[in-house]
């Protein structure tokens, strides 16, 4: 059996890397990681991106939390969370960089 793409991604995160795949035939980044097409190459993102969209989630009895879609500069999009700001202060277009919380990639405002 092939190695799990999700496990490979998670291992990178635990080591402090945001890894993604590159499709050399199509000439584009691929996310989430996949087993196919053949020839996908693993690369490591510089971890810099832009908030593409954002929402504040309200659940009774819990503090409001952010959920965002981040466009990484390498050309892939992922769901994540922006920390270090009030959830409602996270704006579309905000430049962010990756950080890791217990092996989970989150983002914070880029300096």
């Amino acid at each position, binding site marked *: 059996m092939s190695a799990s793409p*999700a496990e490979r991604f998670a291992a990178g995160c635990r080591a402090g890397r945001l890894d993604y795949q590159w499709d050399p035939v199509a000439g584009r980044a691929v996310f989430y990681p996949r087993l196919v097409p053949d020839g996908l190459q693993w690369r490591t993102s510089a971890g810099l991106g832009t908030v593409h969209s954002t*929402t504040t*989630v*309200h659940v009774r009895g819990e503090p409001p939390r952010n959920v965002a879609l981040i466009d990484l500069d390498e050309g892939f999009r992922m*769901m994540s969370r922006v920390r270090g700001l009030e959830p409602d202060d996270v704006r579309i277009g905000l430049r962010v960089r990756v950080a890791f919380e217990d092996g989970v990639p989150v983002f914070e405002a880029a300096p």
Partner: protein
Amino acid sequence: MTIAIAGVAESDLGAAAPGTTALDLMGQASARALADCGLAPAEVDGLFAASTQLPMATLSLGEYLGIRPRCSDATQVGGSSFVAHLAHAAAAIGAGLCDVGLIAYGSTQRLVGRSSASVQERDPYEAPYAPLLPVSAYALAAARHMHEFGTTREQLAEVAVSARAWANSNPKAFKRGPLGIDDVLAAPMISSPLGLRDCCLVTDGGAAAVVCSAERARALARPPVAVLGVGEAQSHRHISSMPDLVRTAAADSGARAFARAGLGPGDVDVLQLYDAFTITPILFLEDLGFCAKGEGGAFVEGGRTAPGGPVPMNTNGGGLSYQHPGMYGLLAIVEAVRQLRGESGDRQVAGAEVALVHGDGGVLSSQCTALLGGPATF
């Protein structure tokens, strides 16, 4: 071969008695739809069904009604499934796989709770951020629409206000009474920019439709409704993989349905656009060609889709105020058929000859569009 919808029905709607099952409501709606057109269960030879609570929905339905079909399709693409079933039933009848198709749905989502009725598979790339699905996905699209086009929360609220105004003429609506834009804006926030009144109801219920050749339908009890054209499309499963948050695959499904029907948006008299959230009809009005991309917010302003407005939309009160039992698409078909038969009572759109039904499934993932016609369109 022209295919027709010969019978439609809802099950009991609203809050089901404790112990009622999704299959009970699916079966009840089915029996009523067959009675509507005067067919017996034994005459059904094709079953088309889906429910998040019934993974083998056509097997369950056949057992419940005592039907042994020679053709079945349990396509599950979310709330749009039943518009897809309409396409598949029409194709199956045309190909001779069956003669009479029964499309059915049932849910006890309110009774058993949304988390148990609609189990979401855990995605390793989204789950760590705990989005409230599906609402957060639609919120991300709404936020992006507001950012790109200047759409406002007031414009989103217009969709809910319009739905309520229609619901006030529908005795079967779950939510009735006055609702203004300020009421929508003042409701508790769920996943910004969508508040409680931007979100569909959670109710129990089911629906069913009987489909057969137009020739056969003409000999039955009710005026047949023509299936003029159906289009299907899909673009993603997860919101993080949606190619463009403000452009849905309704542009594809709509173009396919219009092409098959030989019609355009200007020919449509009444619209049933799946309103899981207030942003969805705005996206679909744009993607189906009723207004330009980005102008959906302005398009719905001033009650233009409400009773008395030029674009009658979601005339039963929609998923926002009428009923939303987990998946709504079949209820939208039922209302379109009733409008084309002229049976919608106080909410009847005068002279409605062509109806558009648009189903949305997943998180803007599956889009299915059907154009239906009244007696004059055969």
